[in-house]
């Protein structure tokens, strides 16, 4: 069953067409990976879903059309977004970043859940977010969005630029989150994709080039080499 249905999604930026009619679904449970080489339109797709870029075509979330809605209205429908650059407010403290994200009916249980996943956020509550390490900023970006009543998370390259140890911690936390909230995961680290995502969609030059089971994709060296530019001959690449 699909929660998010994207059909013929087209986006142009600065007069150049970036997405040329992207069509795929995101399941109502688990992790769906959105893969592809750099510059094929993965982040553009994420931003178009959120309404951050003007787009044409159709993006239906639980049957409701999102195209034309302002970003805040999309977010209020329950789509949480963790952007590629993490989007933490560096001049605000960790606590203020979280306070900004919390809904009006602030739930203590949500804070407990986030602090259980990322204890460092409670320890560093008073620290300016800009002084956190890259990994801690990523934890803040994810933890902050988990305070909201999400029905879908769009997470863009959560392990980018992180050390293997921290990347593993972040991936572990996201796997935990995916037990209750479906995730559309944009990720270059195929090791993370392999452990997290049941399904994958691969973009190539603004179009969907492949859809299917992640393990089948990663088990096909020819396909991964052709679409992702990496070799997975031994079954795993990171």
């Amino acid at each position, binding site marked *: 069953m699909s929660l998010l249905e994207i059909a013929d999604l087209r986006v142009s930026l600065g007069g150049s067409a970036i997405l040329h009619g992207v069509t795929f679904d995101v399941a109502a449970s688990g992790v769906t990976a959105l893969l592809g080489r750099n510059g094929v339109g993965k982040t553009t797709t994420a931003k178009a879903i*959120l309404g*951050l870029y003007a787009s044409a075509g159709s993006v239906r979330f639980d049957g409701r059309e999102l195209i034309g809605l*302002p*970003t*805040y209205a999309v*977010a*209020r429908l329950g789509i949480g*977004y963790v*952007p590629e650059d993490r*989007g933490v*407010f*560096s*001049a*605000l403290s960790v606590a*203020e*970043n979280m*306070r*900004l*994200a919390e*809904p009006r009916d602030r739930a203590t249980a949500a804070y407990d859940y986030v602090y259980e996943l990322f204890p460092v956020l409670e320890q560093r509550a008073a620290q300016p977010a800009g002084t956190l390490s890259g990994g801690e900023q990523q934890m803040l970006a994810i933890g*902050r*969005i988990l305070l*909201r009543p999400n029905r879908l998370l769009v997470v863009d390259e959560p392990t980018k630029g992180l050390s293997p140890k921290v990347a593993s911690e972040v991936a572990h936390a996201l796997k935990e989150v995916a037990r209750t909230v479906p995730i559309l995961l944009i990720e270059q680290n195929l090791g993370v994709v392999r452990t997290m995502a049941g399904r994958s969609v691969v973009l190539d030059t603004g179009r969907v080039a492949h859809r299917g089971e992640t393990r089948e994709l990663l088990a096909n060296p020819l396909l991964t080499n052709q679409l992702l530019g990496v070799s997975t001959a031994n079954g795993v690449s990171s």
Partner: protein
Amino acid sequence: MTTLVLLTATGLGLAALYFLVASGLSLIFGLMDVLNFAHGAFVSIGGYVGWTVADHLSGTFGLVGSLLAGIAAGAAIAAATELAIIRPLYGRPLDQVLATVGLGLAIPALLQAIWGADSRTWLVPGWLAGTVDVAGAHVPTVRFLLIGIAVALLLALRLLFGRTRAGLIVRAGVEDREMVTALGIDVRRANSAVFALGGAAAGLAGVLYGLYQGSVSPGDGTSLLIFAFVVVVLGGAGSITGTAVAAIAVGLVQQYADYASASLGDESVVILLAAVLLLRRRNLQGRPA
């Protein structure tokens, strides 16, 4: 010594005016990326509305009434401008500049049509018309009113931005407006509030400038706006404390240079701006150029 005290008090009085005008300008640009060239016109409207009230109500009652009326007029014209002119032009910076420049020219012309081109004398209450002796210097009392109100506004803004959710939204929006909306927050409401707040501060500045000069004239706001832009560039868009520090620097440098040579005051501000930009190498939003 008395000259130094007098120059410093006058510089700080000017700094208070620059801060009142620049704080709104800075917040509007920081949050909305809107260079509001009509902001000076909001100052002029506040000045004339305040003067009209003071002309009808005398004494301290008239002073308080004129301050409140100036604030209300500035907020009202700013809110109307945001709603009718800025909002339809979001994402079109050139059109916003053209529209606000046009409004910035039209409003003083309208004020001139209503009240005439000549300045109108502002009669201040007796207790405000005198001087206060500071280290032998006779400092006009009105300077202290200006400084006191600017300090009060600075503290109020710091409380607003530090302690309230609305302030948090504005601070976050200055940094990354897109991400704030992605958290489910309608930034347009913050935009309207910031525009009105900036207009209120500009209207207040209009009244205080009238008290400072002892008169109002249609071009008051425009002359203050130039220095307010310099303050915004020096202080960093969206930074209230930075704006306050920059306002003090500009006010004092201008006064001291003016004393050295009557023609140096304004030029010294331009030199200060160039020096800071060359040394700091930051753009208008305080980011590396």
